């Protein structure tokens, strides 16, 4: 099986709620976790708005799916890349985002950060190394 593991990257570029791209992508990500692949997520452009903290949808009546991102660590999805320039262009910092963590089984289940802040150039390199790139 191990020789069949491919590197999958899900590239999220759309804001949540206004269109259905963010929710659909998240569902595919959670499905992909069942196939033991090397999965990573990238958030760039308006995709960074998908993981802002304190999303409150009571007023708009939209389905709040933001908590599902916090479950990614439990599905062994712990490589989450945030593009620095996209945050800056939108007046945001990592403090505006949810804390996404995982428990490292190789390190006595220590809780570790899943989020990695990368530059646009670094993200381009990461994308280059993938076997499969799925963008939305």
């Amino acid at each position, binding site marked *: 099986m191990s020789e069949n593991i491919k590197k999958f990257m899900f590239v999220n570029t*759309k*804001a*949540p*709620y*206004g*269109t259905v791209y963010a929710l659909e992508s998240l569902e595919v990500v959670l499905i992909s976790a069942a196939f033991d692949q090397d999965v990573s997520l990238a958030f760039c*452009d*308006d995709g960074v*708005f998908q993981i*802002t*903290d*304190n*999303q*409150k*949808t*009571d*007023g*708009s009546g*939209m389905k*709040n799916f*933001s908590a599902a991102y916090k479950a990614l660590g439990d599905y062994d999805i712990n490589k989450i890349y945030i593009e620095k320039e996209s945050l800056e*262009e*939108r*007046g*945001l910092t990592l403090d*505006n985002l949810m804390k996404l963590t995982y428990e490292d089984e190789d390190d006595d289940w220590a809780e570790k950060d899943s989020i990695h802040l990368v530059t646009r150039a670094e993200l381009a390199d990461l994308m280059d190394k993938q076997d499969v790139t799925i963008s939305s």
Partner: protein
Amino acid sequence: MAKLHIVNKSPFERSSLDSCLSKSTEGSTILLIEDAVVGALKGTVVADKLTAAIANKNVCVLGSDLNTRGFTEAEILDGIKTVDYAGFVDLVAEHSNVQSWL
């Protein structure tokens, strides 16, 4: 006749806010809803354009759409008013002419 302009697309992805700002006249009202609400945030690359618009136009943002995306009134540019759904209805009722920028 002052118009109500409604923008619902993110200014970081589409040019509809730009189009609206360039074609709306003094004294008109611009309401940001849905994905457009993030344009009202402080410190963004579109903040200067909106600040300029606030000087002679009435710029509003739909509060519930802001909260849905994880933001509050404290995080938006000074001079932009937050309205609720009732306020949205009032704006539509007060203006005889409404234009949506899709």
